């Protein structure tokens, strides 16, 4: 069938009068560089366009795993929206823009050099002193010395939009730790694969070269004398950072270790990564932590996410930083007002790339201008305080206007006024329909030799507020890939590919940050704690309601007692001989109470937190099964939890999810240190829980029913029956669950495995045994030497003593492990002495 006219799509003309149309010129003719795109779009019908949008969404969803980290609060994920229509720029226009961007980067570098050096610009009146010396984040500790590499700006980003005349203007500069390049990479990967013909037709410039340069520039910052490949780490605020996805993505792409402040330590003026095998010197830090928040010793005292001593290590020339500390003042919004004069003065050139018109209100004449025509302006904090929302006076109530003007008069220096032009319009694909949106985009630069290199492409957003593209990520704000066509005659580019996954260079991965292993250890413990809790809860629910036999309350009391010992119900609510009614309340609470510190929802959310923090070390499958586990109860409607049947159903779900976690880790995880610590955590937790189960279920007066329930919770009933038929007695039960090394649920089995794990850890190669290993050997021999028959004889006092001793040993074992491998991870604290104390003073 011939395509008919109706079937084809059409691109609507830009609705906005007075804005630049990216697609068509003033006569309504398609701009030459937009023709292939327009032809491509207009050749599709609604269904095909819908399919295109669906493909993009699907590819983004396939990455859901990674995007889920964004934002974080349990369950919510901020979907990353990518429009299927790229922003194609004319090559010559792009080259001009790039020239302007490079000049701007050189200029800001020179401004920073002066501010952290002679401050001649302030003396010459080219820059108001307030904007530098009055900047809350001007770092005095960084004044008067040159960072390694001799430059003050290595990475730079600018948010650019096109005004109605078609001229590009900069809305804001980013000089501290510019984000977005990772998202741009991700967008390129998705779109290049979705529109391969169009991508090839345009011969879209590849971005890989930019990242190669970035890597080179960053690695060149290593101190003189660094032998071999410098060790570079990407310093992030961690999983809770808004851009944590990008940090993880970039670290992986660039092949750098992703670390948090607590992974690093400054010793003797050098920066070290705390790893399992000791401290490893770090040569360069790719910093994604705010300037002022990087060092609690010399910068903000409350920046405990930073690295104490980082500033002095950098000052001593022992570590390279990209960007150097203090570069944040380059993104001061008010600075834009002074760039043209600064450019003439510092570079002897006219500023090629204009900013949006900017007035610093601290200047009396500017303030007058702003107050005379307030509705023409956007009013913002002069120092770019990220919490400060911009004001649009034209949209304010008269009271709010009066208040704003009063603040402008009194604190004029704290404000900047900008005139935002109408942004250019371009087609956007929305549910199979083409509509028009306005666009701004972030461009990325990296220091390259004596100049800067611009990433060919960028991160565009359909946006009404083009300033600081990342300040207000709205869920409905689409991003766009930015395409720069290659020069005519250049080779067809390969399609973008998934970046190489970081490979473990050394078998065993001794250089893993210890913090990661600590988190993995606790991940193992919590997963196992959930396992024990779920099995106990299932046994509990089976013993309430009308179906339960007359002896059920006795067993129920033991179940609750065990839960109290494990710590999943509050100890204070556990009473001897718990009555069934209160036991029932506790059991439902365990499943449904999302506020309580104890209970399954809070344990699952702890697992979720740990999963996020070890994300960079989890395989995709492991991540997926862990996410499924932590979400299992999210789907359970607590109002429907009214009968044991429904509860048991939910618990069975959890048991399946748990099995998937064990299966995936068992089958797929490389037996390196991460595995060792994960399994060590599980073994210790399982051993401890079993000891407590034995305490609760074999208390004086324990009946046959108690033993049966215990075997059921321990998943060992079948084994028992096979060995002893139906005769239930304490001694064989204890043997099976405590001392039998062939039962994977027994305490002795856990001890044996834990011992094997410890032997594989560093520090245990020699003949000298560590204290953790000595502890395990002690525990093992006390179990092996125990006379179970005798211990269970009489009133069972022997058994109680045995269990108590084994538990005490197990707790100490956990402490030993922390003290041996994680002691240096404990929280750092700030201490300081005031100026007036002259007598004994107890500090808290």
């Amino acid at each position: 069938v011939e395509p008919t006219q109706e079937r084809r799509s059409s691109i609507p003309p830009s609705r906005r009068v007075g804005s630049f149309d990216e697609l068509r010129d003033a006569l309504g003719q398609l701009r030459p560089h937009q023709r292939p795109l327009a032809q491509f779009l207009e050749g599709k019908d609604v269904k095909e366009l819908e399919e295109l949008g669906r493909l993009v969404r699907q590819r983004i969803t396939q990455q859901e795993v990674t995007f889920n980290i964004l934002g974080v609060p349990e369950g919510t994920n901020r979907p990353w929206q990518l429009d299927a229509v790229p922003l194609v720029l004319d090559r010559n226009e792009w080259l001009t823009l790039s020239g302007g961007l490079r000049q701007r980067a050189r200029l800001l570098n020179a401004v920073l050099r002066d501010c952290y050096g002679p401050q001649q610009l302030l003396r010459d009146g080219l820059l108001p002193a307030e904007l530098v010396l009055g900047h809350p984040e001007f770092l005095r500790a960084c004044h008067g010395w040159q960072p390694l590499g001799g430059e003050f700006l290595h990475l730079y980003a600018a948010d650019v939009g096109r005004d109605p005349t078609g001229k590009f203007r900069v809305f804001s500069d980013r000089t501290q730790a510019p984000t977005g390049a990772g998202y741009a990479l991700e967008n390129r990967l998705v779109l290049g694969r979705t529109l391969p013909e169009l991508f090839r037709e345009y011969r879209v410039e590849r971005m890989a070269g930019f990242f190669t340069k970035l890597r080179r520039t960053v690695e060149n910052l290593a101190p003189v004398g660094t032998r071999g490949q410098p060790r570079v780490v990407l310093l992030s605020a961690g999983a809770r950072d808004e851009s944590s996805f990008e940090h993880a993505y970039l670290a992986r792409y660039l092949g750098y270790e992703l670390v948090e402040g607590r992974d690093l330590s400054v010793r003797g003026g050098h920066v070290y990564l705390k790893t399992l095998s000791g401290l490893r010197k770090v040569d360069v830090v790719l910093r994604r932590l705010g300037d002022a928040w990087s060092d609690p010793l010399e910068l903000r005292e409350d920046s405990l996410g930073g690295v104490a001593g980082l500033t002095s290590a950098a000052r001593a020339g022992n570590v390279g930083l990209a960007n150097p500390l203090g570069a944040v003042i380059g993104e001061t919004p008010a600075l834009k007002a002074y760039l043209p004069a600064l450019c003439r003065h510092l570079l002897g050139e006219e500023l090629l790339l204009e900013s949006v018109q900017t007035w610093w209100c601290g200047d009396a004449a500017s303030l007058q201008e702003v107050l005379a025509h307030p509705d023409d302006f956007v009013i913002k904090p002069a120092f770019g305080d990220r919490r400060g929302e911009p004001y649009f006076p034209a949209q304010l109530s008269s009271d709010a206007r009066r208040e704003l003007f009063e603040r402008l008069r009194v604190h004029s220096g704290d404000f900047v006024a900008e005139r935002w032009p109408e942004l250019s319009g371009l087609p956007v694909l929305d549910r199979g329909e083409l509509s028009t949106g306005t666009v701004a985009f972030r461009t990325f630069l990296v220091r390259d030799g004596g100049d800067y290199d611009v990433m060919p492409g960028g991160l565009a957003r359909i946006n009404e507020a083009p300033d600081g593209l990342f300040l207000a990520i709205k869920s409905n704000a689409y991003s766009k890939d930015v395409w720069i066509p290659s020069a005519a005659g250049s080779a067809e580019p390969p399609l973008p590919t998934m970046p190489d996954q970081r490979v473990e260079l050394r078998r065993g991965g001794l250089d893993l940050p210890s913090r990661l292993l600590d988190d993995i250890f606790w991940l193992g413990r919590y997963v196992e704690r959930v396992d024990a809790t779920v099995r106990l809860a299932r046994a509990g629910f089976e013993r309430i309601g009308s179906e339960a036999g007359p002896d059920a309350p006795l067993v129920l009391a033991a179940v609750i007692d065990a839960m109290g010992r494990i710590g999943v119900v509050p100890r204070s609510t556990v009473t001897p001989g718990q009555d069934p009614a209160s036991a029932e309340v506790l059991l439902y609470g365990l499943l449904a109470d999302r506020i309580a510190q104890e209970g399954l929802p809070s344990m699952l959310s702890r697992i979720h937190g740990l999963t996020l923090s070890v994300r960079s070390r989890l395989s995709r499958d492991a991540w997926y099964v862990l996410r499924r586990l932590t979400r299992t109860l999210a789907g359970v409607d607590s109002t429907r939890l009214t009968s044991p049947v429904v509860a048991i159903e939910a618990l069975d779900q959890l048991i399946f999810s748990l099995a998937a976690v064990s299966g995936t880790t068992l089958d797929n995880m490389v037996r390196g240190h991460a595995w060792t610590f994960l399994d060590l955590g599980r073994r210790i937790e399982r051993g401890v829980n079993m000891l407590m189960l034995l305490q609760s279920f074999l208390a004086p007066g324990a009946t046959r029913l108690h033993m049966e329930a215990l075997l059921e919770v321990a998943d060992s009933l079948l084994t028992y029956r096979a060995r002893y038929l139906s005769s239930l007695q304490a001694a064989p039960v204890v043997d099976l669950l405590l001392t039998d090394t062939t039962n994977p649920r027994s305490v002795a089995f856990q001890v044996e495995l834990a011992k094997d794990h410890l032997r594989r850890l560093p520090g245990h190669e020699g003949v000298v045994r560590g204290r953790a290993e000595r502890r395990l050997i002690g525990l093992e021999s006390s179990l092996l030497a125990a006379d179970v028959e005798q211990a269970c004889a009489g009133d069972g006092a022997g058994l109680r003593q045995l269990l108590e001793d084994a538990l005490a040993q197990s707790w100490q074992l956990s402490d030993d492990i922390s003290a041996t491998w994680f002691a240096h991870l404990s929280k750092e604290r700030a201490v300081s002495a005031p100026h007036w104390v002259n007598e004994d003073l107890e500090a808290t």
Partner: protein
Amino acid sequence: VRRYRVTHTTRYDYESPVLHATHALHLEPRSLAHQRVLESRVTITPDQAELHAGRDYFGNMTHFVEILAPHELLEVKSQSRIEVAPPQLELTPATRLSWEKVREQLEQDRSLIAAREFCFDSPLVRSHQMLADYAAPIFTPGRPFVDAVGELSERIFREFKYEPLATDVSTPLAQVLRERRGVCQDFAQLAVGCLRSLGLAGRYVSGYLETEAPPGRPKLVGADASHAWASAFLPALGWIDFDPTNAVFPGERHVTVAWGRDFSDVSPLRGIVLGGGQHSLNVAVDVTLDEDHHDG
């Protein structure tokens, strides 16, 4: 001219071992036109400590101490011998300059940016209408700057109660102003805040004060305080120190250690420790007149 021996001992006792610690110290007195540092040294216990000295942005001597060995006790002892002469305040026409003129010059004369830096907000002292209101009856139109600063010092001395333990380093100025009580550190920052709120330059100065013993009784060792006062900038003359805790212009009994925008720039000891648990802090300052060199 007076000569002093100063010993400033800061001691932390930790509940459990500190595994690693880094501290930044501002403890060595500055050399000034009227103050000579004859000798100065910092000693650390435990002795497995590395010490690096340098000057900070404001020219104060800063020591960085790193302690690599586990320790349950840290003692930082700063000892110095200093010679102090009374600062020479030359009575020139400049001292009659009105405070508004001072403000105008600070705003317009770009050669004064080093002083102008102290007009801006700092972490602990931000200009505020409440502070401006407090200072308004003192800084009356046309009043000579030096007179007004003197009265500001006296007013704070009169209207605020010196009360140890009423405040700590994190007490905001607004609370000090409301409750009218605090210690030298608060009064110094209050004075600095008043100056800044009027568009003037205010500096925070830390140091020591020689305190006299009651007649006939020996001066108690360790009873002298680590002290703080304020400084105001007068173009053509420079910085004029004033001590609102005692309502005096410091003479030869004030020993200057360091200055900055507020306490946070010059805290005597600021550190980050790994481990340690709870700690108790014990500070002793001893300022004695050098036996060999009495006031002559």
